[in-house]
């Protein structure tokens, strides 16, 4: 009896000591953030860089995320999925001026593409979300987008045998808000449109671009477009004011809340009409353009950009060359 006590207490102490030395094993966590393509802006004069896919993504989670992305049951009335607006067959956008969501409700802003969104330094036009996970939660419960509630979403997914099995296999705590967002974001990280003609050009294939597109690229750099639309995603890594040379909003008229840009987030006067510079990859497929969807063609968008951002009235030839260059940014649409 005494011996048992002694051994027991010794074991207890030993166990605790061992715990101290080795450290308590941490509980399994959500899929670790994958290592993205390493930014390679340094040591090269080339302001644009080719795309690379993410590595280290769990294909089972990707599969689960893909299912969730296309599942309309995540919405309030079971009709709207993420893919309803972010149509992967149409450049990851809906092709409409403003997003249309729950029961035909029309949103205030143009749908940004989900392709290469993982490369954006922030999400949404005003950059209010830091991560894809944070972003994904927005539309799902937005009353004019998917209009879902977390209670309903969790109930629906828990009731679904295959979802429940998948979640329980992949996540220690099963069907949970964080796990749903993680799966969707993980899937979205696979939506990198590699292998565009321009990327092949950057990688040394001088025949990949037409003459016009090659001139367009030079113009893109010479006219200063590349000062903002730069990096891997040809944009998406800084904020910029819309209307540096001239007042775009005064000229367009009917200033809406969506036109305030980052001002709506920070409340600082310096951020009025400041937006996240959108990436121009696949821009050929994502008309209409700008946050207000006001430019229906690329040429129109290029002209407006020249006028308000560069202070230039671009001649038609330059606009054609620039448009041809931009069309060469269309990559392989993974889905």
């Amino acid at each position, binding site marked *: 009896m*005494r*011996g048992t*006590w*002694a051994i*027991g*207490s*010794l074991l*207890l*102490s030993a166990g*605790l*000591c061992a*715990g*101290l030395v080795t*450290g308590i094993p941490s509980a399994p966590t959500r899929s670790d953030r994958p290592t*993205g393509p*390493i*930014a*390679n*802006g*340094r040591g*090269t*004069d*080339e*302001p*644009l*860089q080719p795309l690379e896919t993410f590595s280290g993504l769990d294909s089972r989670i990707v599969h689960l995320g893909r299912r969730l992305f296309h599942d309309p049951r995540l919405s309030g009335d079971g009709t709207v999925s993420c893919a309803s607006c972010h149509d992967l067959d149409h450049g990851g956008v809906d092709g409409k001026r403003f997003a249309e969501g729950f029961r035909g409700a029309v949103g205030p802003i143009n749908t940004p593409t989900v392709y290469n969104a993982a490369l954006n*330094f922030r999400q949404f036009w005003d950059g209010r979300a*830091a991560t894809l996970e944070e972003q994904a939660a927005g539309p799902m419960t937005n009353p004019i987008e998917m209009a879902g509630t977390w209670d309903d979403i969790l109930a629906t997914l828990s009731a679904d045998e295959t979802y429940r099995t998948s979640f329980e296999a992949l996540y220690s705590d099963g069907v949970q808000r964080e796990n749903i967002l993680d799966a969707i974001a993980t899937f979205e990280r696979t939506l990198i449109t590699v292998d565009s003609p321009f990327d092949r050009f950057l990688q040394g294939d001088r025949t990949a671009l037409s003459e016009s597109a090659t001139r367009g690229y030079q113009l893109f*750099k*010479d*006219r*200063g*477009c*590349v*000062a*903002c639309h*730069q*990096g*891997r995603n040809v944009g998406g*890594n*800084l*904020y*910029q*004011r819309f209307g*540096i040379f001239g007042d775009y909003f005064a000229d367009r008229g009917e200033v809406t809340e969506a036109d305030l840009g980052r001002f709506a987030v920070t409340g600082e006067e*310096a951020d009025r009409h*400041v937006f996240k*510079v959108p990436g121009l990859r696949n821009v050929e497929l994502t008309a209409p353009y700008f946050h207000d969807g006001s430019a229906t063609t690329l040429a129109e968008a290029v002209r407006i950009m020249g006028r308000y*951002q*560069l202070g*230039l009235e671009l001649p038609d030839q330059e606009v054609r060359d620039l448009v041809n260059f931009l069309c060469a940014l269309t990559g392989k649409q993974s889905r």
Partner: protein
Amino acid sequence: MNLLGHIARLRFVILATIAIPIVGLLFDTSMRLEVHQETTRVLREIERIEVVINRDLLELRHGHQANFDSLVASKQRAHERVQALSDLTKRLYRGDAEAGALDCIDSLCRLLDRRHALLERFKTESAVLNNSLRYFPDALGRAMAKLSVEDESGKAVQELSALAVHALDPAIGGSEASIEELTAAMRQTMRETGISTNGSGPVPALWQLALAMERQKTSVNGVLREATRMSDFRARVDAIEHYLDETRSQLEAASSRYWLLLLLLGVLGLVTTVTAWTGMQASKAAMQRMNETLERRILERTTELEEASRAKTDFLANMSHEIRTPMTAILGYADMLEDEEQSEADRNDCIATIRRNGHFLLSIINDVLDISKIEAGKMTVERIETEPREIIDGVENMMGPKAREQGLEFRMEWPEQVPRRIYTDPMRLTQILVNLVGNALKFTKKGHISVRVDFAPEQPERMRIEVQDSGVGIPADRVDHLFEAFSQADTSTTRRFGGTGLGLTISGRLAQLLGGSITVTSEEGSGSTFTVETATGLTECPPEDLTAGTAAPRARTATARAQTRTRYSGHVLLVEDGLDNQRLISRILSKKGLQVSIAENGAEACEHVLERDRSDIDLILMDMQMPVMDGYEAASTLRNAGCTLPVIALTAHAMETDRQRCLDAGCDDYLTKPVNVQRIGEVLAKHLPEDRSSA
């Protein structure tokens, strides 16, 4: 002592109770140390990343980086570390130093947030600048083209070049005044040379662009200066590390204290375990010893019991033999009595033999009763006034004739003076002496038996009586066992000399009960001497209480014989269920001239006495053990009914307690079976008138 015992018993529990909180504290301390280390690590990482960000900023500003991807990635990493830091602060708690560190970390996080917001401004502003820088060569080309046509002196082109150099040099910033100066100079030259300077031409556009660039440079450089200022950052990091160092040294000290305590407890636990173990071994050994002792004792006891059992078995075998022997004689001679042809002398011989054997049987049974009483501790003795001389005379009367019959000399030796009376149990003392003399008679073939009384008036409390014989003696090795129950010196002795083998045991015990002892000295072949020492119950013996040691034996037997022949008149109701006893007792009573009626049991007796005319019954002689209604109940029923007739109990129970029980039930007197004619005579004499008429 009790408390110490509890502590000793619970020592492991106590040790564990102390150890567990210490382990807990140690655990907590090391967790906190870990948080500290983690915090320091994260701080170092943040520092490193911020340095990288600064380098990125400078490289971007000077055109060594072509895009913001690196800066964005660095900023993302920094953001994650800041998040980790603020997560860690949730695990840093307690202590003033840590509170200070928490404040500093909080302040650091806010600082980093501001700095990271500045990075966004830098990106935005420098994008605009870069935009202009990108476009500037183009604008310069247009202006040059125009001037190269119009400016023949080349002076304006020279000034334009100076302006371009000024605007494009990233190192020069914020010199709007210089640009304005250059522009004014160029405007002057152009006017002098007759070149158009109106608003929308390429040259004015260029100098507008240069001016805008210069303003933008001012803005970017301002942001850059602010963003790259690291002194606040370093001050905060230093403060945090200072606080953390302070706490860490405290924690480490505490940790080593706890380790020391734990080590101490471990040693204590080890010592306790070892002592407990050795204690266990010791108690095991003690237990083993105890078991061995017990086993040995059990073995011994078993042997004793086996011996006792064997002795009892032997005894029973002896008893059986002893009882069968007289029974054989009684039955055999009883058969012979039936033979009509025997002479009167032969008949008398038969009757004598039957009587002798009957008496012997009775003595055996009396001995067994005595020994069982003694064994059960129920034997009691009286202390009544007794004349020593009377006792010795009684012995002489009983045993003397027998001795003389055997041709032995029977001597009585008296001291000069013996006390007139002592206080003892005369019956038991007589029993002892008769026993000893009986033994002497058994073992002595020739020579003498003497009974010597020894008394010293100076020692009045004790008296000694020696019984000496000239018999076979007792072997020395048997002397010690002489007084043990069921043991004769030799089992063969019994066969040679007869007897129950209980006499000495009973005598020895009785002597002890009388406050004395029996000792024996013996020499094999030349005789033995048994000395009875008894308490006299006297404390002093004045001369007037002393008397001479010689006296004539009293004519007791004559009296007894006279009584047996006495006849009585009256009507006796004999209550007895046994047919033989009915007949025997009826005959004895009839021979004494009495009229006898018989009742089968107590109920019949009550009926007889109470319901018939009772005047014809003078005495009731009643057996105690009967069916239907026993004697006790019958006696008390009669007494309760007002019957005053003498009731004499007749019982086979020979114990003193039985006598008392009979008297309590209402009996007047008490007779034991087997019935003794003489004793019946004595009792009848007490309760019935003597019939002189037919004597």
